[in-house]
């Protein structure tokens, strides 16, 4: 019992530190990009800014609703399945990859439902459009994961990481990695961790007050982003495997921040994508065909090696 408690404490400590560092980095990068100026501590990109922002959220009166409470609960609960390191798994399943994906889908669903109940908003007019869009972004991700599963012949995340002790999966599945990464970038653009999304939440979201509910939504955005980064690291970049003599946990953190940094850079360097048709065209012209081709190649490879024994 004490061990479990210790694990939970560790996990949430990591999450909170991660949230702080990521929001600090994000503000820092965006302020460098946008040439913002101001006083050191209070300004965007200062060390105290995330804390100040937290206090600002907490100081506002805001009535919580059921979706926000569920989101808050779930955005932390999702991490009980997905491991940061081999010993930090709280709930053990045999096929935890599927459970993780299910949890992720539920989190997306909750975020969308919260967006739909928006007080001022437009929402149901375009909600169906947005739901369709986010779930179509989910399709290429599923294709890629299926390819990985075919190669490693397992549904357990720990075993997938273990399989990569010699060669990382990115060597076998470069196309899959590109698709996953692009999809992460587009999801980041959709949720716009860097900005309030007018596409997803409507023009009137800018008028909405910022209270505890807003904080939970923001945490959930970060959570989805962390989820997809962690998935990329585990599936393609050998997770917590030691690199030469360096400890696996440190390598994991380094990979995490490098990917986060590249994602934020790309997000800042490209303009906001608030055009529904353009996003859908990216999805149908690039992501889905590439991921399907990747999946087909993997199947052919699998059949030739395992059934006919040619390769």
């Amino acid at each position, binding site marked *: 019992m004490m061990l479990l408690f210790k694990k939970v404490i560790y996990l949430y400590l990591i999450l909170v530190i991660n949230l702080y560092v990521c929001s600090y980095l994000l503000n820092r990068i*965006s302020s460098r*990009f*946008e*040439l*913002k100026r101001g006083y050191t501590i209070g300004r965007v990109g200062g060390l105290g800014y995330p804390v100040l922002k937290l206090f600002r959220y907490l100081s506002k009166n805001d009535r919580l609703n059921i979706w926000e409470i569920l989101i808050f609960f779930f955005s932390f609960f999702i991490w009980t399945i997905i491991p940061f390191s081999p010993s930090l798994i709280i709930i053990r399943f045999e096929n935890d990859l599927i459970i993780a994906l299910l949890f992720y889908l539920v989190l997306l669903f909750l975020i969308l439902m919260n967006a739909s109940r928006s007080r001022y908003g437009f929402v149901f007019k375009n909600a169906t459009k947005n739901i369709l869009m986010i779930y179509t972004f989910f399709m290429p991700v599923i294709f890629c994961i299926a390819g990985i599963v075919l190669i490693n012949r397992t549904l357990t995340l720990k075993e997938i990481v273990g399989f990569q002790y010699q060669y990382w999966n990115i060597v076998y599945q470069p196309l899959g990695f590109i698709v996953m990464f692009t999809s992460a970038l587009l999801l980041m653009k959709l949720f716009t961790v860097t900005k309030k999304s007018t596409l997803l939440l409507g*023009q009137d979201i800018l008028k909405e007050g910022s209270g505890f509910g807003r904080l939970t939504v923001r945490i959930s955005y970060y959570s989805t982003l962390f989820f997809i980064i962690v998935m990329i690291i585990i599936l393609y970049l050998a997770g917590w495997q030691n690199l030469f003599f360096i400890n696996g946990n440190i390598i994991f953190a380094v990979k995490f921040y490098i990917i986060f940094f590249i994602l934020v850079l790309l997000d*800042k*360097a*490209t*303009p*906001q*994508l*608030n*055009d*529904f*048709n*353009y996003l859908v065209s990216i999805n149908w012209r690039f992501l889905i065909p590439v991921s399907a081709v990747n999946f087909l190649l993997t199947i052919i490879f699998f059949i030739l090696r395992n059934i006919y024994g040619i390769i």
Partner: protein
Amino acid sequence: MAKELYDGIYSSHKLVFIEKIKKNLEFYLKDKTLEIKILGQEIFCKADVESLYEILREIRENPELEVDILSSINKYISENRCIVLLNLSSISNNFSMLIKVALKSPADDRESFAAEYNKLINEIGRIYESAVFYLESSTIKDQYSDIVIRSHIMDGLDSFDTYLQAEDGIITKANISAGISTVPIYSVTGNIGITELISKISRFDYNAGIFPELCFCLALEELMQIKVAKRVQFIRMIISELMRISNHLSYISKMAIILGSEIALSHVLIEQERMLRLIELITGSRVHPNYIRIGGVRKDLNEEKLKNISASIAQLLKKMPKIESMLLDNTIITNKLKNTGIAEKRAVHNCGVTGPNLRASGARYDLRKNRNLLLYKDVSFLVATGKYGDCLERFYIRFREIYQSITIIEQLTDSIPDEHIKKLINLSELDMPYTEMISSIECPHGVFKIYFEIAGNTVLKLVVMGPSRNSLYLAENILCGNRAEDIELILASLDISSGEIMQELPV
């Protein structure tokens, strides 16, 4: 000898061909008009309501006149009579004319007066289709439109309501009503002293406030036949080009917000700040400069200021290609802009649009070149033109104009003559007979034209014919066939200034 000749020529004497056109008009419209005369560089004509239709048909169909554009229709009330001003222009003959018509019914009786006005407009509409836009009581109603965009929703486009009908997200019919901009502005438009008006007239264009002032002062100089010193002309050109750059930068920043490019936005804002500081250094104010005086300017430029200008301009020239590549080397942005809101050359002409929006469609028309405005003849620059007239072209042409303005300023600061500017007139002793005057200038949005009546020391009536009203009418036409998501982009790409749309509320 050449210099003496040059100095002796007033701007009004430079255009001799106007006389020719006036003679033609007098010949063809001998019995129909009450009066034809030349005001400034334009032709002014008075007519009756009954003979208006015949006059319009004659000038439209006569191959020697070929007046084929209706630029604007303005109305105002003086001595309980409603007076309608028709602003017409011809592409092939390169002249413009103003027709003044007085309606018969008194302005007190609102209903009969509105009915007569609408009847007149409908009659004009048989010859010029674009007259329909100026109908008094519009038939637009909320219930007939699918999407209604109120004036406060879009940032920077807060002077009109947009009513749209759409099918599957594609706009089939668009109506724009600028009724919200009909405001009581009597304190500026009637019975106002000349000095007071010079300080207040910049309200009609808050993005580039120097141009209304310059337009008004040029008109008065024309009336008084004042010879303006060369140094003054140079200073006026420098400040107006700076204002043009500032306006275009603010336009680019607006577009960057809509396109979602935050990095470009912050860079553009810094450059605009630099320009505004320069303008503040020269004039003492950012928005309403109050800088131009009749026959001169309020403050001379000293050596230090000139150095400052050339240093800032050099910095701007370094930064502009960076900003341009941020915005236009990006396929996401160019895909969005390309083929949206296409305005063909013919349609743009019919709407009476001028300025960069016209040039983006392929017409090479710029008052700086076509008429001898200030001393633009002395500097070498190209008039930037586009080809396709879509949003991308309209966006791109602003960058080209900024580069042209930079080259103009560089030339001017290098060759500004050293002259002593002395005070020419004393406004307190001014006493003019009753006259009417028209004047126009190339402002960043298009051709800014004013008509005023003056007597003694006061302006009795001022009518502003800004180019943004034409852009609104163009927007009505080009919105159809585009997606509903692109409304804001298309409207912003036309650079509509709220001040120019402002109309006097009829009493």
